[in-house]
């Protein structure tokens, strides 16, 4: 056979080709696969997408930061209000209405029962 004849035969080789049949039950198989995919899709609705997970983490961090800032702010206010105000002993005595005997007790270093 010459080269050209080979080429001609090759070019014609698919012309008289028989059409092939799909295997029996092919449509059922496809429908079954679709049913399975649909079921999986429904299930995946209950799981969170990666984007949603990232968003949840971000929101959590944000909430933590806001809470921390609020707590720190409150602490600062408490610290400001609890500054020492140079209370004298007389103020203390007047506030708690302590009499002279008590005053002595307070000023002396010896315990009361001795």
């Amino acid at each position: 056979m010459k080269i050209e004849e080979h080429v001609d035969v090759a070019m014609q080789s698919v012309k008289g080709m028989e059409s092939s049949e799909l295997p029996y039950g092919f449509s059922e198989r496809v429908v079954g696969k679709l049913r399975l995919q649909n079921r999986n899709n429904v299930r995946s609705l209950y799981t969170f997408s990666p984007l949603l997970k990232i968003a949840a983490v971000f929101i959590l961090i944000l909430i933590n930061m806001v809470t921390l800032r609020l707590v720190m702010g409150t602490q600062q206010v408490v610290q400001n209000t609890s500054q020492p105000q140079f209370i004298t002993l007389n103020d203390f005595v007047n506030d708690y209405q302590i009499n002279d005997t008590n005053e002595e007790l307070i000023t002396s270093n010896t315990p009361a029962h001795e």
Partner: protein
Amino acid sequence: MEVNIQELKAGNEQAFRQLIEIYGKGIFNLCLGIIPNREDAEDLTQEVFIEAYKHIRSFREGSHIKTWLFRIALNKCYDHIKFTKRKKRHGIMQSLFDKDDNPIELPSNFAHPGITIENKEHAKALYGALASLPETQHTAFTLYEMQGMDYKQIAETMSVSVSAVESLLSRARAGLRKKLHTYYTRNASS
């Protein structure tokens, strides 16, 4: 026999089964025309219908469902070819010893059920040559020579003009003859 598109869009399983029974064989033979392996073509046909089911809502009712399915099938087949080519290219031995002067790469898993044994070797060479053509020429040749479509049907399927189909077919034939000639000359001398 026609399929009720409204029923398909509503997700009716029976209508979908009917769609597979009407167009399944055509799609399978189209896939076989591009991928000459029964198992691969069967898998691709299955994928075509699953894709069709998923995107049936985007189907415009004025157009023909067969043309739409054929387009999905062609895309699936070329994606499959690209995937297998990529896999081969990554082979270490292939990249070391691959000499790019071979005009035809014969299909390694050739198992076309519609081709007779006496035609097998020539068909294999033709499929090898077809795979090296540009996609548009490959498609035009497959639809005309293997699917028996006329120019108008091919033009509709490929979304091109009839004259473009004529041009694609003539270039495909010329390209195939050239590649086959080189292949047989080399085989005769070796």
